[in-house]
């Protein structure tokens, strides 16, 4: 049973890598998991979710203001870029990079669009990660070991 789950897990991971949702950094995280901290990846991912949500809210708020503070936006996007890179959320990261360039241009419209883009990517990767973690939990529950991923980077 767990073999099946493990296989599904690997396939799923590979797909995520292929589609660019996750990159090698995620594998690094997996490698950090050990007996003393089996839930490490999950904890990190949860932190990422919380932090990202907070930043996205901030961005929304800032862009909503009359006088948009682009500096603040830039700082926030930079932050999001950083945290997305921490778990390997490649597409979110790329969206942030694009966002920043529009920020430089001080174009509110484009920034709003970018924000939307980033939000979308974030939600996507969030659901993927959640699915991944669920699979992991299933594997462990079935008595198996979560397979180690190969570093794609």
């Amino acid at each position, binding site marked *: 049973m767990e073999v099946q789950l493990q296989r599904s897990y690997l396939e799923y991971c590979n797909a995520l890598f292929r589609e660019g949702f996750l990159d090698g*950094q995620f594998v690094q995280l997996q490698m*950090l998991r050990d007996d003393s901290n089996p839930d490490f990846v999950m904890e*990190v991912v949860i932190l990422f979710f919380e932090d990202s949500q907070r930043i996205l809210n901030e961005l929304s708020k800032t862009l909503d203001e009359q006088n948009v503070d682009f500096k603040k936006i830039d700082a926030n996007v930079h*932050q999001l870029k950083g*945290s997305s890179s921490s778990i390997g959320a490649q597409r979110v990261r790329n969206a942030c990079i694009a966002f920043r360039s529009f920020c430089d241009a001080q174009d509110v419209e484009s920034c709003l669009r970018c924000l939307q883009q980033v939000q979308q990517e974030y939600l996507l990767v969030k659901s993927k990660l959640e699915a991944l973690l669920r699979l992991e939990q299933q594997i462990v529950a079935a008595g198996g070991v979560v397979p180690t991923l190969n570093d794609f980077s």
Partner: protein
Amino acid sequence: MDSCGFSSPRTECFPAGLRVLVVDDDPTWLKILEKMLKKCNYEVTTCNLAREALDLLRERKDGFDIVISDVNMPDMDGFKLLEHVGLEMDLPVIMMSVDGETSRVMKGVQHGACDYLLKPIRMKELRNIWQHVFRKRIHEVRDIEGHESLDEMMLRSGADLLDDGFFFGGDPVPGKKRKDVDHRSDDRVGGDPSSLKKARVVWTVELHQKFVKAVNLIGFEKVGPKKILDLMGVPWLTRENVASHLQKYRLYLSRLQKENELRTTLGGTMHSDLSPKDAAAGPGNASLQTLATKSSKQNISVHHDDPRNCEGIAKASPTPMAEAKAAEISDLAKSSTSSISFDRPFVQSSDAKSEPTIQVQYSWSAGAPPLQFKPEQKPQARAPPVGFKQEQKPPLRFKKEQHQKPLFVAEHRFDHTPVAMHHRTDNKTSDKPSPAATDPPYSKAKRGQPSKATKVESTAALFCIQPESPFTDCHTIDPIPSSIWSTKTSQSFEQNLYDEPWHINALLGTGSALACDYTSPYPPNPYLGTIDPFCFNGQELITEVTSLKFPLDPVIDEGLYIA
């Protein structure tokens, strides 16, 4: 990580236990970095605010070895923090950012960052941060001691001095002070050791000689830090100082021994002078002395007992020196290990010559040829930690010999110690050429080596002078080191090495680590047993190395490998 086996604080298993302060406002990164650093066996403290970090640093003045900080933080600019830390605490600071723009990196460097890492940060990058701590310490020592030998050693050998912690005798002739390379806290120079930031013990020639005398009196087999301390009669010296010094000494001796063995095995020209007589001389001191006498040309022993010698030897014609050194080394090794059967095989071996010198540099294992290096490496590796704590004084410096083969030494150093690393980046080029220049044999050795890995190669070359010989092993070792410091370049290699927690460190710092685990043909060495000084799991490294070792043409292979 292997246990250091030594009870001394941190220094024993350097870089394990390195106290790192991580500052990052990103909670995800903070958590990840903490985990990664813990995996490197570092002691981690995290902070998500720069202000907090500064307070913490001020509170615990001597509580940290290195600071890693993000550039963008809400409450304070990372660069500002960097400045503060540099000014107030004088700790090495590594900057991190997801933004790798050249201008930012430049700013970081301008503000004094010793490194700038790009996020996402890999584990392997973190594994090597200890080099910055080590480097700083070496420079501090240099400042304090103002010894040219130290400087030279540093420059050439990548400051392995500290690594080996043995600045045996050979060190700069007293009175011949060299201006510090680093003109760091000049006010610290000349101050008494205890006034040093970390109260390092400077092992002067005299001090070391006292040490050796004590060791010989007690009998190398029965020696123990407490006994030595009692005999030495130096009031301000602590048991820990002696303990770590003893450790280094042992490593040195074992390295010499290994080298000798290697040499013998390699069929190098054993220096008969080194022979059994020296071995019989008795552990430690005896051997050293014999070596010293024997190989006046050889610096190996000379360093120990005869700083002058070392110097001279180092400077002397490379070849003869090499020989001498090798002999010395072997002698030393022999005697010290009291079972030294090899003559300084290292020296002998074609390139071995250079080895010896190099070995010396290591401080103990001047010439440890490739194989030798491995084990020797360890000692050396250990040295850094020891070195850290102690401002190794010339007496211990085998550097003298090293001088001879700066190339060699440096090479070696690079391999395992931060010095190497740092050489790699900075002095690589400089180091390489110089050693080569001074050490013809070395160049010989190098032949097989492509110039890739900066230092590593050279060292590898040195070590691998004898492709067929155990040196090749060394060579293998070298690759590792090179890979280590060529982290940036040899990704693949790094992968291998870095994957092993301490291999890299082992390689770099403690070459001996490799040696230790290395299933060398050398007779079991009491010290070798403890060679694991840096607690790195050279095992894996060794395995890798061993697989590489003795290739007929390891040098070349290694070179490629490394590259």
